[in-house]
């Protein structure tokens, strides 16, 4: 969806902003190890579907959608704990009783309510006409409400100007529209640094240990001058910003089978492969910190795109552009 081919002139001609999209019942379990904010692939998939709807539309058939910027205003996982310090459990739903009148087994799920803003790259070979812009706004506003996002359904958008089009040169005008929210950024550099720090203390530590370290709090006693002991709480991630562990794609763990070989897959018409989740760190960044041109804090670097690496069987979502 987001691959910009070199042999034609398709490029980013503008951006679509979807403002304050309220999503109910999104899947809050983002991977086998993490929960909270849904997986990035849940949103990219939804915009990919939208891009395919554009291909069927008369006035937008030359237009497609590229990378997606994720800005989260609010995320409420639906869970419960009897009192603080207890574990949380997800609130479950009961399924309809079985044909013999007995209770059906519970299928465990985790849901959350979200308020999100999205900025999506609009790809085309020529700049959009005013009619095309109007049509894109009109259509995508309807489509986003008709399709699911991260497993949840879209309950509504902002009341005023819910979908806006920005010219390619005008990207910084998006920033004030995203406030107040946090933008999800890749924190590969921070992760590399933390792995480094952890391995300094323990040379045998793996990156997974480092990932778990990010979630751990260390209580360290410190004897004060008067002999009292003071307990300090420290964390590996302090000083790096708001870091969160998250999945960033899939690693193939088998060979790539030809289409039709694997049984009972969703799409037998495509080749398929067994995969497992790949983890990394993400960082929530306030949009106003993303207005520096160039460098790490450029808003142009905040867009998530698909990337497939056939040599290492990696199916990734990434913000890097330099592959």
């Amino acid at each position, binding site marked *: 969806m987001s691959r910009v081919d070199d042999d034609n002139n398709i490029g980013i001609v503008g951006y679509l902003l979807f403002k304050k999209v309220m999503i109910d019942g999104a899947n809050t379990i983002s991977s086998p190890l993490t929960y909270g904010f849904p997986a990035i692939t849940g949103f990219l998939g939804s915009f990919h579907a939208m891009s395919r709807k554009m291909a069927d539309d008369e006035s937008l058939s030359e237009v497609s959608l590229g990378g997606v910027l994720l800005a989260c205003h609010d995320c409420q996982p639906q869970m419960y704990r009897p009192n603080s310090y207890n574990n949380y*459990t997800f609130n479950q*739903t009961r399924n309809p*009783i079985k*044909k013999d009148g007995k209770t059906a087994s519970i299928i465990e799920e985790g849901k959350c309510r979200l308020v999100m803003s999205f900025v999506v790259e609009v790809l085309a070979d020529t700049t959009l006409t005013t009619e095309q812009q109007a049509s894109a706004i009109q259509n995508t506003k309807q489509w986003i409400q008709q399709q699911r996002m991260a497993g949840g359904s879209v309950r509504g958008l902002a009341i005023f100007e819910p979908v806006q089009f920005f010219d390619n040169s005008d990207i910084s005008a998006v920033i004030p529209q995203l406030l107040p929210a946090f933008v999800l950024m890749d924190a590969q550099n921070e992760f590399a640094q933390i792995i480094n720090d952890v391995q300094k203390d323990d040379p045998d530590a793996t990156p997974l240990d480092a990932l778990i370290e990010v979630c751990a709090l260390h209580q360290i006693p410190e004897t004060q001058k008067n002999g009292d002991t003071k307990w300090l709480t420290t964390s590996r991630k302090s000083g790096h910003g708001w870091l969160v562990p998250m999945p960033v794609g899939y690693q193939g763990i088998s060979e790539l089978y030809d289409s039709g070989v694997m*049984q009972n897959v969703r799409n037998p*018409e495509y080749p398929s492969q067994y995969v497992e989740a790949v983890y990394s760190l993400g960082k929530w960044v306030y949009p106003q910190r993303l207005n520096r041109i160039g460098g790490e804090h450029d808003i142009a670097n905040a867009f998530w795109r698909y990337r497939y690496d056939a040599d290492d069987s990696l199916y990734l979502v990434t913000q890097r552009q330099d592959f």
Partner: protein
Amino acid sequence: MSKSALKTASVLAFERNLDVSDAYLWQTDSKAANKATSPSPVVIKEKSVRGTISNRLKNTITNDLAKLDAETEKANLQKVDSASLDENNDTLVARFSLKVLPFTGKPNVCNDQDYQKALEQVVTDYIDTQGVDELARRYAINVLNARWLWRNRVGTESIKITVKCNDQTIIIDDAKAYGLKNFNSDDANIRQVADWIKAGLNGDEFIILYVEAQAIIGYGQEVYPSQELILDTGSKKSKVLYRVSDRRGSEDNAGMHSQKVSNAIRTIDDWYPDAEFPIAVEPYGAVTTLGTAFRQPKAKMDFYTLFDNWVLNGDAPDISQQHYVMGVLIRGGVFGASGKE
């Protein structure tokens, strides 16, 4: 491929076409001098009560009189959630939105193209010959008769329903005039709402209905939100009610689960064998509160029997059962045939 070679796809799922939101419960006063006072949320409060032992006791205890006395004289302390109107409010305001998505019979996922083609043909034929009029009419009645208020509907003095779609508004002053037992009611309001739902299902336009009920239930009366299903409550609280929002200032706003509201909206199936009252459209006609499934597979009237005969063998059931099968597809669900069988 010949028709007999067709078999059900192993991965087959439908998205719901009536996408219902959670219902938010608010309150207001019908007698307020200033009608402009805005409603406030119904708040869930925690109550600690000293109950009595009133459960049926085990035989070993009932046979021993001394033990029985000791047991029944004990206090039964419990902590529960409850929700009620404030003492100066007599009206429960419940709101939800109902999004109607285009129904084309195209599955959300299906891993067998031949099967999908046959299935879409069946749905297209149904829409061409029957249309979704009957289904839309029944859904509309269930929106307007306030069935979706469930227990909150019982014992109300009156219920006013407001349905908004685009710029149009429909107001029903006495929702209880529409019965719950049958779908014989018919008037201009029902037809209007049915037309909206029909337009949404046919994909003619994008339809989202904003539904509001104002039920006069009396000052300070209890309201009944959904109860949460929590697998591990600890021993702290025996009942946790649904808080629909965690937003600051209205964290404890009571609500009803979308599942509960949509179950009421699709309570349109009075086509099951020996039907006496409508039940929700479910593959086996299951009604949880009665612990009964009204469409037993042995009666050959369950969804899978009807659906497979229709799609695989081209054997269309009665028109009423056709409505039912389409109702299940509109409800959505996972209907694939396991490869293990």
